[in-house]
């Protein structure tokens, strides 16, 4: 940490330039313009540009975008492919059984988009309204005032070498202070996690649960391509005990987004979400689509699956949480884009009103009230039991979901409870080792050649941003009891156990491959790994993810 940090003052600082953060920024500026008031708003984004770290489906519900920017069509928003053909399929090893599409998964009026490109476009809209957007700057630390409230954030120092010493290019971080700081870090925000602890925000909420989504973009043969077509699958290659499935969306230009989500409440430590995905692509119903095509992009990102009962307290003195870092994702719909935007807009409205008060740095409780009064709350409430019901296996989950959806319409008088994901993992003895097939280099690949397509930029000479609380745990606990699950769940191959043959095992961390998906921060059995922000601008450079 450095003494000589420069201070920059704003009215509102927003951490994260995803859909939620950008929507909040735009709404704030709109309100200020309507009221004829000056308002300094800035957005910090750790990616090298807005969109560089955004990975999503994405089948997008445009309702909230229309609320925010009614003339988005005229302004050229990148929503060009309406969804047309919805398919829900149960896979067994050989067969593909078409099922009725559950109503939450029906997608009429929606668009297949690149959320990264939508963020880029929203970034331009925000910039035009006078929002200060700072891509390439990560918020590394929350700043507190004497009374214990949040007074802003500090960006990380740049140019600190591996050895912790300043390099010739050293540049201290900045303190960005504000009356209100909006945290919009997306799933498993690294500063949000500190706020959870500091303000005990999760006290009355169930633990958040997560999934990891691994995604590839393929260019396929034109004859097989049907813009707007959606396919969702469940079942093979995951056993009935593991929650997960795939989504396959036909975008424009003969490209398809193909992704695989695995619930991080999985129990078998031998499971590898990456390998399950690769294996999935070899299914007789999927492989022919990819044959003759080429893979263009690769990436991974976690998503919140806890839903309604996992939503934390949203406000604290000087700040609030919006978007997926608060857990506003509708799991049965597998959509969090429209809810992220809505929460951002509601936050902006509450914050703007609050800023007119004398004590503008206090808690914006009106935001939580607005959320409770909105369609967002109702939507998440009705979906609340579907994901947890899959804890008892896929068949129970499917049966219950149907019952819950068609019979109770989400109004069942009970709410299922959940455990944190890292506690769900079981010791290696209780589970069979999984032998995954070798990649063929055509349809299936290894992790290194995949990460190559994520366009990662990571200054090698910097302190490792994956921190271990206990240096001995990777071998003494993770390896001994769980066969080092981090070597399998990390979709980028960051973690490796070396020296096992010589009887001297140790954990090697290839931090420069990190995709910022946050899976390790979530799933490490003893929560020993802490994901912190590396130097701003580090990480993937996703294209139209």
């Amino acid at each position: 940490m450095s003494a000589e940090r420069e201070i920059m003052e704003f009215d509102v600082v927003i951490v994260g330039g995803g859909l939620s953060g950008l929507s909040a920024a735009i709404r704030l500026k709109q309100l200020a313009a309507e009221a004829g008031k000056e308002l300094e708003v800035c957005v910090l984004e750790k990616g090298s540009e807005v969109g560089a770290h955004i990975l999503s489906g994405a089948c997008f519900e445009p309702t909230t975008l229309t609320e925010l920017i009614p003339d988005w069509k005229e302004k050229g928003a990148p929503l060009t492919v309406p969804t047309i053909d919805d398919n829900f399929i149960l896979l067994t090893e050989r067969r593909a059984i078409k099922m009725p599409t559950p109503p939450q998964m029906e997608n009429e009026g929606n668009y297949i988009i690149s959320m990264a490109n939508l963020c880029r476009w929203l970034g331009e809209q925000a910039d035009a309204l006078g929002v200060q957007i700072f891509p390439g700057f990560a918020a590394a630390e929350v700043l507190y005032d004497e009374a214990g409230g949040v007074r802003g954030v500090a960006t990380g120092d740049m140019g600190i070498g591996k050895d912790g010493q300043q390099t010739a290019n050293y540049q201290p971080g900045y303190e960005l202070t504000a009356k209100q700081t909006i945290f919009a870090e997306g799933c498993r925000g690294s500063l949000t996690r500190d706020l959870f602890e500091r303000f005990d925000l999760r006290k009355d909420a169930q633990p958040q649960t997560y999934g990891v989504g691994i995604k590839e973009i393929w260019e396929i043969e034109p004859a097989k391509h049907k813009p707007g077509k959606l396919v969702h699958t469940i079942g093979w290659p995951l056993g009935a005990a593991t929650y997960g499935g795939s989504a396959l969306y036909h975008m424009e230009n003969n490209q398809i987004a193909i992704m695989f989500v695995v619930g991080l409440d999985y129990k078998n430590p031998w499971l590898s979400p990456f390998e399950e995905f690769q294996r999935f692509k070899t299914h007789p119903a999927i492989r022919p689509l990819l044959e003759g095509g080429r893979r263009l992009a690769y990436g991974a990102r976690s998503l919140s699956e806890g839903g309604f009962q996992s939503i934390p307290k949203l406000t604290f003195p000087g700040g609030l949480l919006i978007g997926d870092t608060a857990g506003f994702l509708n799991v049965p719909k597998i959509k969090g884009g429209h809810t992220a935007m809505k929460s951002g807009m509601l936050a902006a409205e509450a914050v703007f009103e609050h800023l007119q008060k004398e004590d503008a740095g206090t808690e914006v409780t009106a935001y939580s009230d607005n959320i409770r009064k909105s369609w967002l709350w109702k939507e998440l409430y009705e979906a609340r039991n579907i994901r947890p019901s899959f804890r008892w296996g896929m068949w129970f989950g499917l049966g219950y979901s149907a019952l819950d959806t068609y019979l109770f319409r989400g109004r069942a008088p009970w709410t299922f409870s959940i455990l944190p994901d890292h506690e769900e993992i079981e010791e290696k003895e209780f589970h069979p080792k999984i032998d995954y097939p070798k990649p063929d280099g055509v349809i299936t690949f290894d992790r290194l050649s995949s990460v190559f397509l994520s366009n990662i930029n990571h200054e090698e000479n910097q302190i490792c941003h994956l921190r271990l609380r206990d240096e001995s745990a990777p071998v003494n606990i993770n390896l001994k009891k769980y066969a080092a699950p981090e070597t399998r769940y990390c979709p980028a191959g960051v973690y490796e156990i070396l020296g096992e043959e010589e009887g001297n095992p140790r954990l090697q961390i290839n931090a420069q491959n990190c995709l910022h998906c946050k899976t390790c921060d979530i799933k490490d059995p003893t929560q020993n790994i802490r994901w912190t922000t590396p130097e701003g601008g580090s990480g993937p450079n996703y294209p139209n993810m």
Partner: protein
Amino acid sequence: MKVLVPVKRVVDSNTKVRAKADETGVDLANVKMSMNPFDEIAVEEAVRLKEKGVATEVVVVSCGASSSQETLRTALAVGADRAILVDCGDADLQPLAVAKLLKAVSDKENPQIIIAGKQAIDDDANQVGQMLAALQGWPQVTFASRVDVADGKVKVTREIDGGLETLEASLPAVITADLRLNEPRYAKLPDVMKAKKRPLDTTTPAELGVNVTPRLKTLKVSEPPKRQGGGKVADVADLVNKLKNEAKVI
């Protein structure tokens, strides 16, 4: 003394580029673009000359689509004073056209030094600096790894096979920047904000009286053949057999 630095918006160096399926060019859709890394070095050198009190003003210029404004703002954020965009729409700009545009800009600006990158990492042509010097009738010193300016002259060190070469040229001159000339700084946050307010003028090839019609035609852009995976041979006999009958080299 004024320094002019031409900067080009190119595919980001972290991006894995690919040829378009129809082989008409590199697929630039959805690809991240950044300032040509050698131009970052050129800007840094110009800013250092200003900080040393040698230069008084650093002007950056880019020829390209309006999106090149972003590249110019990046240069402004690390210390350039002023920017000029030569808005060429999505015209296919070739090195000679760029050199002519830069000459036209230079004629108006009258810089004493032009520092360009040694090459742009997209086309790797390594031509603009040299063509520009020829059009101007100025001395040129390419691949600079050290630049010292004094008494109306510039001393430039170049890394050559087996050692260093130091050249001296009289000003005005064109210099092109090599990789080890310096290590560009990180932009400072307040400067990113200030960069938005610095002047950025736009002109066009027509205003500059330059015809940018391409003179070269690209026939085909294709990817290198995929490397065939290796195989293990059982013994010498197998190796000889494979060389004879599969590879057909003996």
